[in-house]
């Protein structure tokens, strides 16, 4: 493949990852890292560095749009980012001390459980009623957005904030420790634990992942994992894809977004269990 074709293919692939990432609240690393390493033959370190850049680019592009449409809740995002960022820093410090494999296995099993939970919720368009969580009320973890698909305003408030905060912190620790993106866990915590509408969950996750990723950007940069020739086409493609994805997501039903999210956690659960058992390549 010629250089120009290679770079164009990278932009196109990243565009796809950006669309998916913006809709599902993920950085796209779950798609990009395997594609970059297996299809493009890029070294794993550069693939992970590019994936980190893609998380920040997706987050910037998608969250900018979602903040405008009211789907990203900035207070919920900042409140929970305290948990994910401190978690990620502690996780990074602990890496090498804590046995990764056992953790991956536990994580895989926890994700399998969340698959079951998501399956049970597949038909639920919106959570019923407004919960009365005292922390949510004190910190204003609530909002309203105009649902284009349902054609009405939707009011929501976070439930079980304490549990959600702890889950977010755990997600941060794991992402720092295992070097995995934590977008999927953020969405699960927002959707399942805190019972926010699915679209608010993925949009708010989009806002948060950029902040969490920025916390580890310096480490990747210092290690020389961020290669400009790979990161530039990836960032460009992802940001373009994210703008298309955000426009698309507003029109989808909450149930559709959740149904699209399901294969991601099934894949994550399986790959974590495989890694925990020592089957995977990594």
């Amino acid at each position, binding site marked *: 493949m010629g250089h120009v074709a290679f770079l164009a293919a990278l932009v196109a692939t990243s565009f796809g990852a950006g669309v998916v990432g913006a809709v599902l609240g993920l950085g796209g690393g779950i798609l990009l890292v395997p594609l970059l390493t297996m299809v493009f033959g890029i070294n794993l370190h550069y693939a992970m560095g590019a994936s980190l850049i893609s998380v920040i680019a997706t987050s910037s*592009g998608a969250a*900018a749009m979602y903040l405008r449409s009211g789907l990203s809740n900035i207070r919920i995002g900042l409140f929970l980012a305290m948990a994910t960022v401190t978690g990620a820093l502690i996780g990074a410090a602990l890496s090498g001390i804590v046995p990764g494999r056992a953790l991956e296995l536990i994580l895989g099993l926890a994700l399998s459980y969340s698959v079951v939970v998501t399956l049970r919720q597949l038909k639920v368009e919106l959570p019923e009623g407004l919960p009365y969580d005292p922390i949510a009320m004190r910190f204003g973890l609530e909002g309203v957005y105009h649902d284009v698909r349902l054609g009405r305003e939707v009011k929501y408030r976070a439930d079980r904030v304490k549990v959600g905060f702890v889950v977010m912190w755990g997600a941060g620790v794991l992402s720092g420790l295992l070097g995995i993106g934590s977008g999927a866990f953020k969405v699960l915590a927002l959707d399942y634990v805190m019972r926010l509408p699915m679209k608010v969950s993925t949009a708010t996750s989009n806002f948060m992942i950029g902040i969490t990723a920025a916390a*580890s950007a310096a480490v990747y940069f210092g290690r020389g994992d961020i290669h400009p020739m790979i990161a530039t086409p990836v960032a460009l493609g992802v940001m373009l894809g994210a703008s298309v994805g955000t426009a698309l997501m507003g029109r989808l039903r909450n149930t559709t977004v959740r149904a699209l999210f399901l294969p991601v956690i099934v894949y994550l659960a399986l790959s974590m269990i495989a890694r925990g058992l020592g089957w995977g390549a990594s």
Partner: protein
Amino acid sequence: MTPVERIVSRILWWGGVASIALMLIGLVSYAVQVGIGSEGFDVPRTIEPREAGPPPHVFTSVRQVLEGLRRWPVDPLAVAAVGLLALACTPVAAVVVSIGVFLSEGDRRYALISTLLAAALIGSLLMGGAG
């Protein structure tokens, strides 16, 4: 849209766009400089580049980037690296600016939350940059 949402949204969008523009300018000028089909423009597809010494074309510290910018002609890849760093700093900038907006709205609780977050983020950037 509240003021803080509007301002954070703008920072994220324009921060992203400007950073990617810098990265593109750097990469395209580099391609023009060395010739796009040449050896110098080989996209690295090695298996373990680190065993062969430090990776080429990759800046690993702010000092290196600044040196590349001070040189004449300016190292185009240093320009791309500035874009990369700017992209990484974009979410941090959004959090930092939100402190002021929350304060001006009289929301001291969220000004404090943003301050704590900003401190953690800037701390991690400084620690990683020094290493």
